[in-house]
């Protein structure tokens, strides 16, 4: 976090500012997706961009996720730098062939001759009462695939800096935004900056336990850390910021220091992000850990609509607090 940051922006404003700056800097950057132009997306994240950059660079598409993602791949190969907008992360299902069999593999299969500098922006996160087809956090799938990079910002500051890096990257980058975080405010400097991929950020220093949290779960973990402080447990909260590349070193070093670690991610707990990160820590800090690495992800159920049910499907500050307390052996 920069010292001099005075100005506060919402997460949505930070995303928009990153896009606007990059579009001003590089005329090859363009955006396409459903209702991205006049509507500025249903979340209004892109409001105003079509007015500044015109309908040639901010293009409304039909509801054709596979088609326009594939066009993103081709456009990226041939001189544009497209930012493809997939309204809900749940619709990634429709883009998997284009992202995985095409975007991720073009550079390698062509022996390094063609490049795919595209960004796919999409959302993750439940608790919006949107039910099972609009609440998934499917970033584990993309993180599993070589050739892709996966970005999971947790603050307005990170969102802006990481998105600028994503747009300048020569590879296909999948950028996940927590839709519940669009209104979150945080400091964002007026000066230009970018944030490198593969560098975890220690969001809170601590001594007794390491909580690795991604995207939506970072703020929740920070809330849990405050609760833990009240009972005398000092939690270190680390945000990898990109699941690929993954800053294994910072995670392992923190776990070595604290001797206890938890991984919190809003994707499904099974066969997902928590398994990978927990394994990295369990291996790297094996001789320092005093307890098994604890994993917390979304419950292994389709996200239910009913509020009392939905609310128990994802980690909360309270459930993280309780798990951390148990892990530290405090009752």
């Amino acid at each position, binding site marked *: 976090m920069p010292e001099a940051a005075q100005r506060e922006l919402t997460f949505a404003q930070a995303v928009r500012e990153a896009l606007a700056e990059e579009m001003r800097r590089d005329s090859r950057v363009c955006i396409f997706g459903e*209702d991205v132009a006049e*509507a500025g997306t249903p979340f209004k994240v892109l409001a105003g961009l079509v007015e500044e950059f015109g309908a040639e660079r901010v293009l409304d598409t039909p*509801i054709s996720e*596979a088609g326009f993602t594939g066009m993103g791949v081709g456009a990226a190969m041939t001189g544009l730098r497209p930012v493809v907008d997939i309204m809900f992360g749940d619709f990634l299902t429709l883009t998997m062939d284009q992202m995985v069999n095409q975007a991720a593999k073009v550079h390698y299969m062509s022996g390094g001759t063609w490049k795919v500098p595209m960004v796919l922006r999409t959302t993750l996160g439940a608790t919006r009462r949107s039910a099972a087809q609009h609440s998934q956090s499917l970033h584990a799938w993309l993180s599993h695939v070589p050739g892709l990079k996966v970005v999971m910002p947790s603050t307005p500051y990170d969102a802006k800096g990481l998105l600028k890096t994503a747009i300048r990257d020569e590879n296909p980058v999948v950028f996940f935004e927590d839709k519940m975080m669009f209104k979150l405010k945080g400091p964002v400097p007026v000066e230009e900056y970018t944030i490198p991929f593969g560098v975890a950020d220690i969001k809170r220093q601590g001594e007794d336990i390491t909580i690795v949290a991604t995207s939506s779960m970072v703020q929740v973990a920070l809330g849990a850390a405050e609760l833990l402080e009240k009972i005398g447990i000092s939690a270190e909260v680390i945000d990898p910021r990109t699941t690929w590349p993954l800053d294994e070193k910072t995670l392992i070093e923190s776990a070595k220091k604290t001797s206890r670690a938890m991984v919190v991610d809003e994707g499904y707990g099974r066969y997902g992000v928590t398994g990978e990160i927990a394994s990295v820590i369990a291996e790297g800090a094996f001789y320092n850990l005093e307890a098994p690495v604890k994993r917390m992800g979304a419950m292994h159920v389709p996200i239910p609509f009913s509020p009392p*049910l939905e609310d128990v499907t994802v980690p909360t500050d309270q459930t993280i607090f309780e798990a951390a307390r148990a892990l530290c052996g405090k009752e």
Partner: protein
Amino acid sequence: MTTVTDKSNTKSNTQVEKWIRTYRRMVMIRLFEEQVNELYTRALMPGLAHLYVGEEAVAVGICEALNPTDYITSTHRGHGHCLAKGASPDRMFAELLGKEAGYCRGKGGSMHIADPATGNLGANAIVGGSTGIATGAALSSKRLRTGQVAVCFFGEGALGQGVLYEVMNLAALWKLPVIYVCENNLYTEYTHYSETTAGDILARGTAFGVQAEAVDGQDVRAVNAIAQKLVDRARKGEGPAFLLCNTYRYTGHHVGDINREYYRSKQEEQEWKTKRDPIKNLAEWLISEKLADAAGLTAIETEVRAEMKSAVEFAIAAPYPGVEEVEQDVYA
């Protein structure tokens, strides 16, 4: 009191009963949606909902041509399809509020109402997402020789989804009893369909060997007549059809879409509401044909309104599912 939940299996053959029932159903959908909007503005409903107001003639005209055992698949804008196929408003409202008494025990919500008893294979929040399901149901019908027809409702936005063409091709090849009903209400969220739809919509059916027809979706009698023809044809094994219904949604894309002027004019909305209202049109015809009088129709409206009110109250009072339910029904 006349029950407003009359199932189509109690269908009478007399014309007057048929059109009165049709009228009642359309009124029911409209008043149901009024209550939904009310629930939203009173902050009693979790999340959002997509209202079917203005499009009632499509769902009702088509479902009136179906048997109770026929299948439908529906969309994010699905309340009208559910009701037209015979669902009870009370359990629908309960679902919208996430209550255990809901059709899906609260697990589905507005965009996922499903009901085996009325052949409703489910609403779907993925645009185009149910086109495969409807076509597969038609395959079952053909293979098991049950005589059922499947109707796949979708908005014109689903014309953007390739899977629709994949399954239309398959339905034509295998002569499946499925009818693809395209509800062209002119907008996909906040974009006019002309900006997202090249070529010719009907040709998109015929190019894949599917018989395609268009109809004024505000005229329930026209919708019903053509639906009956296509359903009969499908049931006889003559293959799939594509039915383009030109219609309009009176309100926002969802209940929270209030300021719409950046994508369509108030005047346009006004014109559809005043000149092409499907309920008003049917009422006028009923009266002109002397099948009903104004007082009778008002009485129906009053009855339905009361029914909707008590259905909402039922739903508001109903309990949520117990938290232990969250891990149930993941696997059968």
